């Protein structure tokens, strides 16, 4: 059982800088009009002007500006070297570029898998489908895996692979921002009386996500992080736990019996129930060898910080 660190950097950083668009946008089907009243160009109130401006900015770049040149000239000023429409378009490019950057920060390996152009196209579908409705970008990209499983997203890769990869990368983002409960230690476990063990339950680290996949995406993820250019793998069930211990993020692949045991513990099964389930997954090994392996996982999970406490049976 090995675990890999997740290099820092997946926190997208908000700043007051204006991003610059680098790619030519492709055709995007959906649009993201501003809700509420129509953005009537004749409404010169502050709210009217804001709705008009936001509609112009949030319209996909592949589509014509919703405001005509004459209308823009009436509402905005020309500059020393640019007409009013070109000045307005700076904001439309900046809006899309900022959100593409945000999604690229969240999904660097998906971006690698898709390539720049396809990833950019996917982001533009995402932005049109899911305009931001809150002040934070921390969770803006949360719907990517679902979008990739839907028919709305372009599919240059097997949908299951792309969606699994997105789910893994989103788990990393979630774990960055989740509160982390202090780790349970092996020494701490020593305080549990032996007779209480079978009925004891473990409390999972709140900054841990346990995932099952159709594709071995963690292996692909690590290969990309290693600077390799892996091929898209064949479908093969896999499981990974992503968690944070202090400021450090980790990913750990799990075999099916390991996943089942850990899932049981996280779901609140007693140690006896979860470990018995894992032991049942082994075939052809002696009872002693099975017990040795299962206890080995358990000790590693505890020492890795996957649990934050233990609830003796009498507390349930």
């Amino acid at each position, binding site marked *: 059982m090995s675990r890999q660190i997740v290099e820092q950097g997946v926190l997208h950083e908000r*700043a007051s800088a204006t991003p*610059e668009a680098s790619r030519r946008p492709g055709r995007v089907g959906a649009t993201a009009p*501003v809700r509420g009243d129509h953005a009537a160009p004749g409404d010169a109130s502050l*709210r009217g*002007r*804001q709705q008009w401006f936001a509609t112009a900015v949030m319209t996909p770049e592949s589509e014509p500006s919703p405001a005509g040149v004459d209308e823009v*000239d009436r509402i905005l000023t020309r500059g020393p070297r640019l007409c009013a429409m070109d000045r307005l378009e700076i904001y439309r490019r900046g809006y899309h570029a900022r959100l593409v950057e945000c999604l690229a920060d969240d999904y660097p390996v998906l971006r690698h898998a898709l390539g720049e152009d396809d990833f950019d196209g996917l982001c533009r579908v995402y932005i049109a489908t899911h305009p931001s*409705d809150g*002040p934070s970008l921390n969770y803006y990209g949360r719907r990517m895996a679902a979008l990739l499983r839907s028919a709305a997203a372009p599919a240059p890769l097997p949908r299951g692979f792309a969606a699994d990869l997105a789910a893994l990368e989103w788990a990393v983002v979630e774990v960055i921002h*989740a509160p982390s409960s202090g780790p349970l230690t092996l020494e701490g476990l020593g305080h549990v009386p032996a007779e209480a063990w079978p009925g004891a339950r473990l409390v999972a680290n709140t900054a841990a996500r346990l995932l099952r996949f159709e594709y071995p995406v963690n292996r692909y993820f690590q290969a990309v992080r290693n600077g390799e250019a892996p091929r898209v793998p064949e479908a093969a069930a896999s499981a990974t736990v992503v968690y944070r211990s202090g400021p450090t993020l980790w990913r750990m692949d799990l075999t099916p019996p390991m996943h089942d045991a850990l899932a049981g513990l996280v779901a609140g099964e007693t140690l006896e129930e979860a470990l018995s389930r894992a032991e049942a997954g082994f075939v052809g090994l002696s009872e002693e060898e099975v017990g040795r392996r299962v206890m080995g996982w358990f000790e590693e999970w505890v020492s890795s910080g996957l649990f934050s406490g233990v609830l003796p049976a009498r507390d349930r």
Partner: protein
Amino acid sequence: MSNRFGLPDLGVGIGLRTVHYGHIVDAWPQVDWFEILSDNYMHTAGRPLHFADAVAARYPVALHGVALSIGSTDPIDRAYLAELRALRDRTRARWVSDHLCWTGVAGRNTHDLLPLPYTEETLRHVVDRVRFVQDFLGAPLALENPSTYVEFAGASMREWEFLARLAEEADCAILLDVNNVFVSARNHGFDPRAYLDAVPYDRVVQLHVAGHTDHGTHIIDSHIGPVDDDVWKLLGEAWRRAGGVSVLLEWDAEIPSFEETHAEALRARRFIGAAA
């Protein structure tokens, strides 16, 4: 201490950026102060706060936001303000700043700093909201002049007049970004010194500098690369007029090493007449 709010001159600082986390917590370099991008440390209970706490424990910090949307006609987001106040208290930030702009309307957020039409209606609207925010925070809010790429034809005043009147009528502070003055001056064809002449310096609690990208037809406030010499000169002029005030370098794209970023910030000392 020359501003009317009694806020200190913290010296020359840099913006805290994730790519520098490792170096900072390993070396604890000598830095006058850090500006923390508040929105990166809100809506999270995880790792970002680990670093914010560590930095705030060792350096003076101020909070700088991009999502307050003080000019929006949507209702003020009280949950956002509550979280901002909690972060301010947690980090013991010396002050809180955001931008004279709006970021969204009708429940949608563009995450951009969008320009306001500088009219009497807008002034009344923003004055009321700044007062509300200051009451909520129990402290003055510093508003930064944004870089803008377009102006509204129906405006009845220029940005510098709007900013000065807003600061006076709302009794708020100003974060004067001299790079933004430079960028907007080129984009709209005004003299940046006309802007500097109109600033009420007793309300200026911080100065920003940053790099920009000149496209010939317009300038983008990209926060990339070293600071233009003309911007440094504006910094020196504003700093002298303010009688000494905290200076902060923003570098947000293609961010170099911590040492290079900090060295660029410290170039400010040549222009503000401080000891190197």
